[in-house]
């Protein structure tokens, strides 16, 4: 084999690296390596001018490959692979060394150590480069269809956007009805449209589209394949109502049903029957029978002919190219006794309060008592000092002020007292805060080390605070109702997330690859995330991320074909003696037993192999190597690091 000629570029990263790593010393340490034809330092390796210089260098000097030592390959591996391609090199000849996250930053306390480590890391990359060969990418047919998981506002908008782009969509909703959280709200800020009206508008748009399949009562329970061709198994629970139900029959059926259970749609403020609909205009318009609570008394069957208990659970299979996750959030449930929650009867959460004011007219009452003084305690379950939820839930300040103003305008003699920790009505939402101050709402503030308390004295409920806005004065409000401003938390049920192996961030919401470079993509190829499953967001922010994710999912598939890394396992037929150990180890059934030249050996099915390497260590005769991670490469990297 002819000796390789490579170029090495060591990035200053404008000080991020060069403040701690002596990049010139690294350059000098590696320029003498036998295959290194040129070694340069550069202020920003990723800059346009350096990229051009690299292309020029490769072409002029007929380089066989390049190594860039800069930031994490998560950020710029693709950037430099593309540079190689522009210089007519195969992209797999490119090797990356991470001397920022794993050298300059990790060892910013030890410049000599960081420099030594960077030298070793670059030498290891050069060693790997010695073996890096030109590879053909695998071309995979991409199914132009996207599964959108979750039919809240984000999922619905993503589905519409994909459908507009002539992409097939299967919209999968776990609940019996679409609309998610937004369907639970009436009045929204910045618009006269109610949440329910907005959902109706989106639903009417969805159902007229032939390329969208809407599945309610449905859950993804199986997932096979990879980007371009993902086979989903979906379990669809029946509604036990066959065909469209006559409204009058339905009314009678609901009236006659003897079961009463707490209504989750109204956050358990009210009850519903076992056969139910959450609100009259709800979609789909067919009601549902909640079999978990149904006593099978048969009363509804008698008054409504469409009730059909013989319906069976269905298992459906869909093949899609990409999956867009829009599974939303849960509302934080306060701990028992947290600010009197569950121990005092007039303490409720913000979502409950919003349902309460939406469902009442004339007088505002709770548990039969008229409400005048309302105390709102902010940041319950968010910005926790002792708890795990250290993040701000972003939307609750605005949502609370909006609800408080709505209550004031809808009911008489309401006094709002806001026990906050610094209002975060960012951007134009500030206007709402100003309106609230103007309307006479009272704001009292504390720091995290002096949170308000909720106590009772006789029949009175008292909220006390040392108010920092009035020089730490002890203030006390007698509240008829205490509203705990609960924030957003990740879904407690993460079954679909774990099915797709979606990584979570420190806040336990799904994590994007990079907040600014790739904000809606996950490390799992072909799976995008949208809306509040990625972190707290308001409606407009959820929609923006939904449309971004839709564009990303679409662009992966729009060409009908996509390229995947050819980094699969390979078998040395000389060494292989077919013992079957590899076949047993492979989780993807990618290993076949074949007969050649009177010898039985293993063979890799390249289109199925995902390149995990699980087969390699179990092979007794050491006949299996992963392309680009072969024993030769790893051993030579170890030599360079030693």
């Amino acid at each position, binding site marked *: 084999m002819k000796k390789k000629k490579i170029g090495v570029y060591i990035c200053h990263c404008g000080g991020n690296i060069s403040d701690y790593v002596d990049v010139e010393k690294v350059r000098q340490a590696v320029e003498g390596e036998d295959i290194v034809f040129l070694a340069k330092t550069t202020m920003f390796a990723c800059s346009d001018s350096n990229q051009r210089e690299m292309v020029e260098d490769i072409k002029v000097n007929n380089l066989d490959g390049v190594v860039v030592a800069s930031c994490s390959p998560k950020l710029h591996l693709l950037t430099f692979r593309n540079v190689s391609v522009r210089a007519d090199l195969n992209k797999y000849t490119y090797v990356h060394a991470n001397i920022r996250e794993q050298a300059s930053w990790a060892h910013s306390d030890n410049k000599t150590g960081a420099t030594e480590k960077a030298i070793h890391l670059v030498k290891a990359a050069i060693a790997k480069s010695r073996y890096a060969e030109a590879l053909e990418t695998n071309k995979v047919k991409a199914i132009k269809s996207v599964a959108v998981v979750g039919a809240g506002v984000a999922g619905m908008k993503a589905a519409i956007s994909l459908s507009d782009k002539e992409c097939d969509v299967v919209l999968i909703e776990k609940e019996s009805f679409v609309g998610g959280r937004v369907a639970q709200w009436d009045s929204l800020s910045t618009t006269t449209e109610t949440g329910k009206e907005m959902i109706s508008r989106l639903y009417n748009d969805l159902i007229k589209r032939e390329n969208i399949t809407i599945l309610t009562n449905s859950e993804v329970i199986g997932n096979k394949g990879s980007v371009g061709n993902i086979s989903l198994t979906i379990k669809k629970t029946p509604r036990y109502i066959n065909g469209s139900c006559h409204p009058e029959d339905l009314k009678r059926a609901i009236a006659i049903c003897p079961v009463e259970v707490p209504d989750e749609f109204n956050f358990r403020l009210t009850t519903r029957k076992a056969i139910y609909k959450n609100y009259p205009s709800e979609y789909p318009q067919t009601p549902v029978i909640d079999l978990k609570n149904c006593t099978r008394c048969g009363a509804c069957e008698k008054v409504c002919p469409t009730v059909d208990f013989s319906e069976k659970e269905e298992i459906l299979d869909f093949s899609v190219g990409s999956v867009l996750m829009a599974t939303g959030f849960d509302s934080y449930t306060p701990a028992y006794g947290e600010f009197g929650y569950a121990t005092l009867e007039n303490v409720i959460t913000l979502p409950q309060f919003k349902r309460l004011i939406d469902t009442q007219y004339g007088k505002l009452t709770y548990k039969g008592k008229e409400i005048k003084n309302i105390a709102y305690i902010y940041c319950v379950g968010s910005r926790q000092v002792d708890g795990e939820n250290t993040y701000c839930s972003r939307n609750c300040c605005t949502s609370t002020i909006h609800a408080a103003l709505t209550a004031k305008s809808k009911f008489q003699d309401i006094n709002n007292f806001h026990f906050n920790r610094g209002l975060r009505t960012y951007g134009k939402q500030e206007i709402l805060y100003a309106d609230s101050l103007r309307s006479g709402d009272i704001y009292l503030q504390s720091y995290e080390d002096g949170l308000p308390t909720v106590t009772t004295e006789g029949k009175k409920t008292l909220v006390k605070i040392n108010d920092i806005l009035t020089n730490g004065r002890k203030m006390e409000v007698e509240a008829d109702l205490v509203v705990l401003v609960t924030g957003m938390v990740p879904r407690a049920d993460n079954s679909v997330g774990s099915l797709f192996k979606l990584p979570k961030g420190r806040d336990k919401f799904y994590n994007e690859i990079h907040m600014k470079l790739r904000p809606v993509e996950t490390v799992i190829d072909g799976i995008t995330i949208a809306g509040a499953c990625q972190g707290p967001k308001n409606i407009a922010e959820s929609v923006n991320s939904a449309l971004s994710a839709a564009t990303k999912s679409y662009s992966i598939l729009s060409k009908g074909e996509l390229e995947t890394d050819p980094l699969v396992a390979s078998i040395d037929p000389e060494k292989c003696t077919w013992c079957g150990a590899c076949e047993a180890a492979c989780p993807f059934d990618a290993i076949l037993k074949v007969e050649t030249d009177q010898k039985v050996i293993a063979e890799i099915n390249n289109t199925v192999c995902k390149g995990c390497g699980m087969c390699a*260590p179990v092979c007794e005769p050491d006949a299996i190597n*992963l392309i680009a991670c072969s024993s030769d490469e790893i051993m030579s990297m170890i030599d360079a690091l030693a």
Partner: protein
Amino acid sequence: MADLHKNSAKILVFSTEKISDPAIDMAGLLKLHYPPTVYTITIPCSSGIKSSWILHAYQKGFDGVFIAADGSDCVYGESCTEKTGRLVGKTHELMKAEEIDPARLRMAAICSVCSESFVKQIRSFNEYLLKTLHP
């Protein structure tokens, strides 16, 4: 280099591209320091590590080898944990045969946000190796 060895052992880390690498990167981002003689080789999945690589590292003078395993987060399936465990067991046997202290091979599950746990693990491993190998 001699100076560096006084308080830092030479450790080879096998880390996985999608799960533990992001944690190690984030440790750098958060400037959670650990000894600079800790080097990472990235592989797709921890269950693909060959015993021969680990033994080679000891021959070349590494004090310790640390497997930052995917654990149950592995994108290639749940069998990863068990398979990685098995190959560590097998390697321990080989190490004993060559009279290498099996405790010089350590494994811990490092998820994509386990930066602090990674640094903690590495620091304690470093202390152990310094105590036993460079007293």
